[in-house]
């Protein structure tokens, strides 16, 4: 009994320590909260976390990162409402689903919190909810540009490995790519799931059932890393045309090794960093850029990989 009491007390102390640290660490200066739609398991958002942390440090403001643990957008709406209730100077958020998120975002704007839409969404939607601006890469356009590029390289059919099937912007990327190629998307997009082993095996299964596939398109490190392994396993690595959205450690290695032709860098660092800088200067000096900011798309190929390699997964 006493040992249990001790254990409980210890557990309480351990649990409370970060709470204390967190509550006392609030410095002076503006407070900005970034809300993303990404589940905890999505490693790509690490760059975003590093980006706002660096911006917070350089500008001398408080920054926080929030996300729905399972990626449920309805939970994300609650987090935006919660962020509003905690009274920050500004909220930086993705607009992953206009129907779900526009209400809470408008409420934030109307209660005096400035909002910048980053990453997912569109300039039009950002204007409609009353946000200051949109910072990101228009997804359909990026997919379309990639499709045109692949068409120029002689691609006629492809496999889109979609690891986030419930996210509309993922589908826009695949749809844009198909339209850029001038082919029907049809069954060329597979729901790959989030688990690396499952993704790898679904890619293997698709490619053995459709050996004539010209190209593979992956939508980020979550689907690209297992796809690289799959292609190495079935011997298609370096032979099949392989393009991917977003960068990561393995993707950069793949580009260097010639397995991946190009990666589309939407430069997430800028999507997190710039809104903090823009809002801080807006709140301090009243200056605001007059337009939306396109952080991408930029095609990364085997040329000039050094800096990317050095900072991949951290700032790139």
């Amino acid at each position, binding site marked *: 009994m006493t040992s249990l009491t001790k254990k409980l007390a210890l557990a309480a102390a351990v649990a409370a320590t970060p709470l204390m640290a967190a509550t006392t660490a609030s410095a002076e200066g503006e407070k900005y909260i970034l809300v993303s739609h990404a589940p905890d398991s999505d490693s790509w958002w690490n760059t975003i976390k590093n980006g706002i942390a660096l911006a917070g440090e350089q500008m001398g403001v408080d920054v926080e990162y929030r996300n729905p*643990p399972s990626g449920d957008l309805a939970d994300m709406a609650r987090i935006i409402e919660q962020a509003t209730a905690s009274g920050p100077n500004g909220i930086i958020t993705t607009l992953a689903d206009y129907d779900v998120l526009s209400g809470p975002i408008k409420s934030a704007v*109307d209660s005096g919190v400035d909002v910048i839409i980053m990453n997912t969404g569109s300039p039009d939607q950002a204007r409609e909810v009353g946000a200051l601006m949109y910072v990101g890469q228009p997804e359909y356009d990026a997919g379309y540009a990639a499709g045109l590029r692949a068409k120029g390289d002689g691609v006629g059919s492809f496999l889109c490995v979609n690891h986030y099937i419930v996210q509309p912007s993922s589908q826009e990327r695949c749809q844009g790519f198909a339209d850029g190629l001038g082919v029907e998307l049809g069954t060329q997009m597979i729901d790959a799931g989030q688990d690396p082993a499952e993704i790898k095996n679904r890619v293997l299964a698709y490619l053995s059932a459709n050996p004539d596939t010209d190209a593979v398109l992956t939508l980020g490190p979550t689907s690209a890393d297992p796809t690289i392994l799959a292609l190495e396993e079935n011997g298609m690595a370096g032979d099949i045309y392989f393009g991917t959205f977003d960068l990561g450690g393995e993707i950069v290695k793949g580009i260097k090794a010639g397995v991946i032709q190009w990666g589309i860098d939407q430069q997430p660092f800028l999507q997190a960093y710039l809104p903090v800088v823009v809002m801080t200067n807006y709140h301090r000096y009243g200056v605001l850029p007059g337009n939306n900011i396109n952080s991408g798309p930029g095609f990364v190929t085997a040329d000039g990989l050094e800096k990317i390699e050095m900072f991949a997964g951290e700032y790139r």
Partner: protein
Amino acid sequence: MSNAPTETAVDERVKSRSRFREALIRPELGGMVGTVAVFTFFLLFAFDSGMFNSQGMMNWSIVSAQFMIIAVGACLLMISGEFDLSVGSMIGFTGMMIAIFSVTLGWPVWLAILTTFALAVSIGALNGFIVIRTGLPSFIVTLAFWFILRGFAIFLPQVIERKTIIGGIKDVAEGDWLAFLFGGKILTGVFQWLGDAGLIATFTRGTREGQPVVDGIPMLIVWAIGLIIFGHVLLTKTKFGNWIYASGGDAEAARNSGVPVNKVKILMFMFTAFCATVFATCQVMEFGSAAADRGLLKEFEAIIAVVIGGALLTGGYGSVLGAALGALIFGVVQQGLFFLNVEPSLFRVFMGVILLGAVILNTYIRRIITGER
């Protein structure tokens, strides 16, 4: 529970207990202690973080109410000795069906909602029927439906609309009487008055300038309270409530004494599905869209709330009030951690620690008081 006057002959089969002891051995005791502890903690550490202003309170109240709705169903089912792991998938599936019926097929929203409820309750009955007929653990049967329903929630919109989010429900639900019952807000006048009187904050700019930041009690919360009252009365004041306890305590003994165990269990599966559909309908009506990933992990959150509330996983013991308090604790802690500005990657660690702590505490309190081993 009857307080018969002492003059009447005391039935020697009924063990007498002091009122104090009677109060202590209630299943919801742990939940009550936890609720007080949680509120004390957040009042001390998060008082000026916005958690206890009108917006903040509405925020965690809505989240708690969501948990309560599914916890009431899960609680009654668990007391009757069964599990339902398909709750989260049911939420995604039913939300999607409402969207498909009303937006894609163009049915009136009330018809879409009623049809979806009928469909969901039938699936609940099917769950129960399979469990009873095969004698398989409900864990496995409902796990199968966890996959099946989630699969349909992704497949149907993909095939019909070529996307996994169907929007535009707000437009078609405009002015629909049944839609209001799930997505509307009541007491808006009271909140406007509170806002005008300066008791709660108002919007300072935009088209809603001057309106209060909290403009009414969402029907979600009304549903939660209604379901809790219904479940509590059903469980503690009716013969059927005793049957639920008996079915979960010892199904064979209950059967021998004439309790329709199969009927009770199937009805509880149907009620759980009903609660999940209430959750989904409220969500769809509020947000105006249905998505294939809605309700992820909600089955576990429902079970966690019920267990924090003092119910036994093995059935036969528990209370609806306890489950409601469990849901309140879970909702307040979950949102409160955001207000406290805790490192978000540690979020799951905290939830796990709290769950473990609550269950251990509940078990010890029960053992100490009831003297059981």
